[in-house]
Structure formats: C-alpha cells, structure tokens
C-alpha cells in the first residue's frame, strides 16, 4: 500500500512538473508568435500603434484586434497586436514593458485587472506613450481615455424599439434580466422604461421584470412563469446572454414561435440556433470589430494631439463618424453608439466568431 502510494505521488509530481514546463514553452511560443511578425517590421519613422488583448485564442478578442489593425492601416501606420497566453495582469505588464522599450506611439489595452496595471501604464505614459483602454477598462489614473462598447441609453432604447417592431406595436412585454443587483442590467432596464414613456408606446405594456440570475435553470423557470402568469404576453426582452438563450430554448420547446417574440443582447454562437429557426428574429450586441476600429482612431487622435482625453473633445473616427468624449466616473470615455444587429442574414458569419 505504502509503496503504491509512493509511486502514485511520484507520478502526480512528475505530471505536474512536466505540465508546468509545457505551459512555459507554450507561453513563450504564443507570445513570440503574436508579437514577432508585427514587431519584426521595424521601419523607423512609421508611427507604431500597439494593442494588448486579454489573452490569445479568443475569437472575440481577435475581432477586436482586427478592427484596431484595420483603423491603423487605413491611417497608414503600423499596428502591433499582442496578447498573452493566460489572461493575467502579470503577463500584460511584461508586454507593456516590452512595448515601452520598443517606443510605440500609442498603446490600447483590454485590461485583465483594473488596478494592477497602473504602475506599468503610468510608466508608459511618462515615457510619452498615449494610453487608452477599450472594452474592459483600467482605472482612471492609468489611462487617458476609455472606449466603451456599450452605450446604455442606445442599448435600452434600441431593445424596446426592436421588440415593439416585432410585436406589431401593441401588447404585453416582459424583461428577463440577470440578477436584480447587476449595475449594467439595471441601467439598461431604466433606459428601456424611459423609452416606453413615449406616447407612441401607449399600447405596449411592460408587465414584469423577472430575474434569472444568469443561471440556466432559474432563467428557464422564470421564463416559464412569465408565459403562464401572463397568457397574453407577446414579447420578451432579455439583455443577458444566458437569459436570452434560455428563453429561446423555452419558446422552442413550447412551440411558441411567432406567438411570443424574443430579442435581447446575446452571444451570436449561443443564439444562432434560435435566430436561424425564427424564434428570435434578431438580437443585438456590440460589434468587436467596431470597438477595435474606434480605438484605433481614438489612439491616432491622441497621438496627433487632436484630443487630450478631456471631456468635450471631439474627433472623427473614420466610417463611424464624429465622436465626443464624455465623463465616466473619475475618467473619460467614448461611447461606441448603437449596438450591432444580428439577424438571419449575418448570423452564419458571426456564430463561429464569439
């Protein structure tokens, strides 16, 4: 028994050591692979714009970096795309240090931690690099500007306009949210309610806001309860990935296609099934390409000095048009604008992306 236990323990340790080595190797090769092609072309005077995403192998992040690269290349500069192997702040700090020594002009970061990156990013700003964050923000001291993918007002209003169009302008609707304490959800719901105050929605009645807690089983129970408590329900808005997919599943299983409409914010991969089957005619989410694209133009405006990151500054972001900087807590931010619409015509292209 003892002998066997010894062998077992040795085996476990061996596996642990080997896998740790494997991880390191992967880390090096991964970092090099994404860094070297861009960093290799050192063409002297050409301005260099870097972006660091959370981690490699994330299709959503790849679209974001692609959008950034598109904007920078449109402007005729060089883009450096980087992402660490593991989504940790430590790995991002190493990359920030590398980029400081490469003397890039601007650095856009999707932070793995709001506060841990502050020393590294301050060092970069002291070295004259323009720093901005996108998607996942870093704290106000460690950035000059944040690019916010979700404009709460546009999201709330667009969702209501969408569902009202689907139900034909009148009837009962309900909202299936995540938790009752989720800040972003509640902000969106407030905007939905404001949109519904408009007299043109006099025939639309919001009967209930239900909370599925972003759990599959609870979201399903809540959807079933909505359908039974409000037999005349005509539409459900669910501004959360798990909720909208769970509602789609319930409507599919109960054969309510066409009777109860569904829209919300969801992942294209999760919703592809229900959009293709017509249960949900369309839904929304921000487009990662546009988030990256806007960041690229904002970075350029910072480098040119068109903007300084102060409230009220304006710049033109290529095809997205003019954008204005607004306050965001202690810092400043730019809103992307309307969420992107996913429907039967484009879902096939997006369902493998994220």
């Amino acid at each position, binding site marked *: 028994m003892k002998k066997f236990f010894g062998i077992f323990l040795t085996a476990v340790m061996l596996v642990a050591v080997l896998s740790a080595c494997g991880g390191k190797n992967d880390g090096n090769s991964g970092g090099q692979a994404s860094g070297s092609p861009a960093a290799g072309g050192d063409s002297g005077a050409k301005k260099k714009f870097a972006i660091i995403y959370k981690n490699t192998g994330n299709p959503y992040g790849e679209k974001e970096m692609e959008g950034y690269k598109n904007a920078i290349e449109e402007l005729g500069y060089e883009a450096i795309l980087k992402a660490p192997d593991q989504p940790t702040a430590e790995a991002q700090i190493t990359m920030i240090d590398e980029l400081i020594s490469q003397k890039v002009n601007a650095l856009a970061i999707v932070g793995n931690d709001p506060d841990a990156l502050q020393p590294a990013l301050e060092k970069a700003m002291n070295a004259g690099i323009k720093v901005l964050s996108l998607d996942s923000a870093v704290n106000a001291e460690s950035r000059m500007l944040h690019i916010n993918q979700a404009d709460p007002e546009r999201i709330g209003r667009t969702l209501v306009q969408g569902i009202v169009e689907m139900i034909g302008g009148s009837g009962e609707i309900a909202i299936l949210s995540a938790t*009752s304490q989720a800040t972003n959800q509640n902000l969106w719901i407030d905007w939905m309610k404001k949109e519904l105050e408009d007299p043109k929605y006099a025939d639309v009645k919001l009967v209930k806001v239900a909370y599925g807690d972003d759990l*599959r089983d609870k979201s399903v129970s809540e959807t079933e309860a909505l359908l039974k408590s409000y037999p005349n329900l005509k539409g459900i808005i669910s501004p959360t990935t798990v909720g909208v997919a769970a509602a789609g599943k319930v409507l599919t299983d109960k054969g309510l296609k066409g009777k109860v409409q569904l829209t919300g914010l969801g*992942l294209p991969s999760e919703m592809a099934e229900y959009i293709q089957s017509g249960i949900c005619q369309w839904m929304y989410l921000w487009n990662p390409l546009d988030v990256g694209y806007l960041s690229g133009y904002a970075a350029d405006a910072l480098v040119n000095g068109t903007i300084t990151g102060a409230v009220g500054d304006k710049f033109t972001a290529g095809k997205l048009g003019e954008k204005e900087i607004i306050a965001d807590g202690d810092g400043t931010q730019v809103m992307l604008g309307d969420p992107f619409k996913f429907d039967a015509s484009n879902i096939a292209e997006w369902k493998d992306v994220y």
Partner: protein
Amino acid sequence: MKQAATNSAALQGAGHDKSGSLSANIAKFRELGLLLFIVILSVGVQLRNPSFLTWENISDIATNTAILSILAVGMMLVIITRGIDLSIGATLALSGMVSALTVSQYPDLHPLLAVGVGVGVGLVCGVVIGFLVSWINILPIIATLGMMNVFRGLTFETSGGKWVSAHQMPESFKAIATGSVFGINNLILIAIAIYIVAYYFVSHTRTGRRVYAIGSNPESAEISGIRTGRILWLVYSIMGGLSGLAGVLWVSKFASAQGDTASGYELSVIAACVLGGVSIAGGVGKLSGVILGAVLLGILNNALPMINVSPFWQNFIQGSIILIAVLVNALVKRGIDRNNLMRRKI
C-alpha cells in the same frame, strides 16, 4: 349456514386487519409531515396564481426537478455512509461538456452513446473520489472539495473556456431531454427508472443494506465482516455515474454547455436530501423522503416566480419555507415515533 357465517366473519376479520394495517402504515409513514406541507404549499400558491395546478405546469415542475432528484438519490447513499460529495456540480459540468464536445464533433453519434460518454466520464470522476476516500482515507468533505476544483478546471481546459451552443448540437442529442413517451417527458421517465432501481438496491440487496450498516455503525460493520472500503468506493462511483448522467441530461435540456454549468448545484441536492429526512450523522435516509424533498425544492423554484413577489423576498421566502418544512417534518416524525412506541406490544 354456520360455515358461511364463520367464513364471512373471517372475511370481515381479514378486512378489518387489512384496514388496520393500512392506517398503521400511514401512521408509520415518517415523511407525512413533508407531504402535508407540500399539499398546503401547493394550495396556497394555487390561490395566488390559478395557472399553478395545471397539467402543463405540473409537467414543467416534474421535468425541471428530474435532474435534481436523480442527483439526490446518489447523494442520499453518500450521506447515509456519513460522507458528503461537494464535487457533483463540477462532475456534472465536466461530463456534460465532454459529451457536448463529442456530439459537436460527431453529429451522427447515437444519442445513447452520448449518454454513455457522459456517464463514463462521471463514473471515472466518482471512482477517483471513491479511491481517495476509501483507500487513502481522506475526509470526504476535503477530498470532494479538492476534486470539485480539479473537475471544474478540467471542464474549462477541455473546452478552452468556450461554450458549446445549441447550433453545434445535433437534433437527436437535444431530443434526449425534449422527447417524450406517451406524453411523459423522457427526463421524468429516466428519473422514475432510477428511483425503481435505487429502491430495489437499498431495500432488497445485501450491498444496499450494508450501506446503511456502515452508516449507522462503521466499527461494528467492519467487525461483522463488511468490507467498508469497497462499499464506500461503490457509493461514490454510483454518485459519479449519476452526476455524469445528469450532466448529459442538463446539457441536452438547456442546449448549452458552459464551464460554470451547475456551479453551486450540490447545495440544492444536499438540501433536498436533508429536507427528505436523510441524517447527516449517517445511517438514516429513505428514498421516498428524498424524492419528496426534491419535489418540494422543485415546487419552490417553480412557484416563487409565479406568486409575483420581489426578487429580494424570493430568497427570504425560500429559506423560511425550507426551515418550516424541516420543522414540521421533525415534529410530525416525533409524534409518529411516539405513536409507534405506544403501539409496540410488550
């Protein structure tokens, strides 16, 4: 004539005996309190929302409770042996993820094979835990807490952090949970089949009785020649296998596999067992009680959204109802036990 009279008297006697034993049986039914409580709760909810006791809603409750009750059967065995299994939520997620990935790669795979894959993965997880608990003598709570994180990590590792979505799963796989036989959903049928097998196992097989023996007194079980280690191993393997099955059913029902599927679900399962009168101290627990416990939780999950109270009160009400149910059950049980003592012929 006389003969006929005695015959009829005998018949009457027999009839009387029968009804006596029936009422005695009812009086002996220890989970009576829980059953009564469920009935009262249902009537109360029905008064608030008339669509509660409709055929469709009852069928929804049964379908949504099936997975919980399958897991509760396994958990009952584990708790009877004085153990606990905190890893089942993670095992469920891992086996669900593996079977979802399998069917997304091989869409033509027969759904039964997909179920087999999930049960297999769960079984392996259970065997590992059983090994840790019975051979290396790690406390069950520690062993399963550790393995819970291991399995959860493996789930993220196998999927690369991504979800498997509805469009990647073939219709045949999703039909496991949505299909029905004679109008009864497959999930309910699977759960009932498992109750029957479990009932036979715990009441009519030697191994089943040994599970109780180990729980009520491990030392004397060991001395009387029961191989405690083997039984423990078996119990955790059964739990793992059932979690694996539940994983496939979960993923098929919700048509989505995530890394954090069913996280924290083990607590609901343990709650169902405790509600059903399974003693954490080991040795005590009945299948009927556990099923009633799971049904009560299922009714709560279904009814609370329907009575239209604020989400903050929902948690409060849920907790209070569970406490009251345990209290009522304990009081009724005490009464029945006293009654039984009085009935006993000395």
